[in-house]
């Protein structure tokens, strides 16, 4: 396969899968700009290995790069304050409940360690099996089960996720 053909195939792959991959990156980072940067970096890394990838495994390869690059960025992140000229107040009185539920979930996701968050997104957004998730994360199936179980336990504090469980418990 010559270079032009490889490039055309890669661009076709990106055109088809970009949106879905961007959604995964968004859930991993929680920030629009970082998601775009993360995906672009991952696609560039994938491009350098494209000549030895099979069409069927390419998407899984990008996802693995996404998760591992996100983990690297997370380790290097700066957690101190970021000066802002204007406080990001949002006035949305009509959708207050929805916005607050959404924020609660974002906060809960952001509070998870990076591998736990990645395991959760691969399992419950990408619908990966435990085996596939373990391959992407480079760990055992048991570790994936443990990561997901602990992540779900933490997310029970989010009202919108725990809402339907409490009545059942109270009925027992």
């Amino acid at each position, binding site marked *: 396969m010559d270079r032009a053909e490889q*490039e055309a195939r*890669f*661009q076709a792959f*990106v*055109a088809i899968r*970009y*949106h879905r991959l*961007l*959604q*995964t990156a*968004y*859930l991993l980072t929680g920030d*629009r*700009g970082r*998601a*775009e940067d993360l995906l*672009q970096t991952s*696609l*560039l890394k994938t*491009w*350098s290995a494209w000549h030895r990838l099979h069409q069927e495994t390419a998407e899984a390869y990008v996802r693995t790069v996404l998760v591992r690059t996100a983990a690297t960025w997370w380790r*290097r992140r*700066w957690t*101190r*304050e*970021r*000066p*802002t*000229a*204007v406080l*990001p107040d949002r006035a949305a009185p009509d959708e207050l409940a929805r916005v607050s539920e*959404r924020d609660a*979930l*974002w906060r809960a996701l952001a509070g998870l360690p990076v591998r736990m968050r990645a395991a*959760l*997104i691969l399992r*419950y*957004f990408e*619908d990966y099996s435990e085996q596939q998730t373990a391959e992407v994360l480079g760990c055992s199936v048991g570790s994936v089960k443990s990561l*997901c*179980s602990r992540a*779900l*336990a933490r*997310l*029970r504090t989010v009202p*919108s*996720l*725990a*809402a*339907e*469980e409490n009545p*059942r418990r109270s009925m027992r």
Partner: protein
Amino acid sequence: MSHDGIERRLRAQLRTLAEEIQPSPDRLQRLPSRLRAARRRRVAGSLAAACLTIAVAVAVVRVLPLASTTPAIQGSSSPPRTFLSDNIEPKDPGGRQLGRYDVSTGRRLAVVSDWGVHRWQLLDDGSVVVEATLSPLCDTSLARILPDGQRRPLGKVGPTSGGGDGGFAFSADAKLVAAAGLCPTATRLDTGTAGRSDGPRRIATISTRARLAVYPVGATIGAKPLSTRTVDGRVPGRPVVSADGHHVAFLVTVTNTNHPKVEALLLDLSGAQPSWRQVTLRPDSAACQLQGSSAVLDRHDPSLLLTTESCGAEQRLVLVDLRNGQARTLLQLGKGTQAGLDLDASRSYLLVTTWSARRDGGIAARLTTYRWDGGSRLQPLSGRTLSQDLTPRSGGAPATPAQW
């Protein structure tokens, strides 16, 4: 433990969250050019690695035996190619990034810090020192960003800001750091109108005091300063350390008079005990006002200092003789609101940024590079208007460039 209910709801809510993001067309359009650039870099990298292997082999055979007797070259013999500046982060309108920029094109080459910093300094080893936190206001912590991106906390240096002025400066060998800033001392309640028409009311007046200090630096900043001084009624600019690290100049603007004037508080560290001297700087024309927020010292003669003055709308570069405080105009920098000065690692090249107001209300920045052989021997090399997104702050502490 069964997770059936929460798993189902989590799946649904993750999909809802993911729907918030849509691909931006410009990113997709730029991707092919990024791919080509990545390919070029890979090819260039392979070639560079091959060349490096050959060069190292040649060096091992021919150069290294002479290295022990060959004196090290002091500083760079070529003008600075890059500088540091902060800009508004396009994706986060309130946030800022500190980046490394190409002097000739004004393009950003790398992000040094992905969070906003107010002051920074490039050290000779390539690391960048930034204000890590301004909280508490009167005891700024500094952090060092190593060339590989690692961040190391350095310790505290007292205040480095206040009203936007002040700052810090390391010596060339990074063995000491000078810091200057304002700190509130007392709050007084007075009765006044404060411009209101509905009668007198209580007004809080906050007194401030400038603190000037020099700390020793090892792996971190020493807890005890080498010397410190506090002055009232004066706003400090960024301190200046001489090339040999034995002299520190703190320029302060005296604010409690009708005609603001600039003084230099000079600290001599060459003797057994630190000694302070004070001199009032005099502009070469009564129509001009020395700025004092940014300055550099002559690398050969620490009694000569370059700073700027404003004469109406005109900015001028002046050479000040610190023995008597007399300033002398060297160059007219053009119309502008403010100017910032910095030297490169060899102390042979001067980088001057001038800021002026644009007609659309924005700020235009221009960067000019000079060869400076000390004294009045100044030779312009290049000038460039910086791109619109590179918007240094106006007013307060000048966001001066620093050569990388």
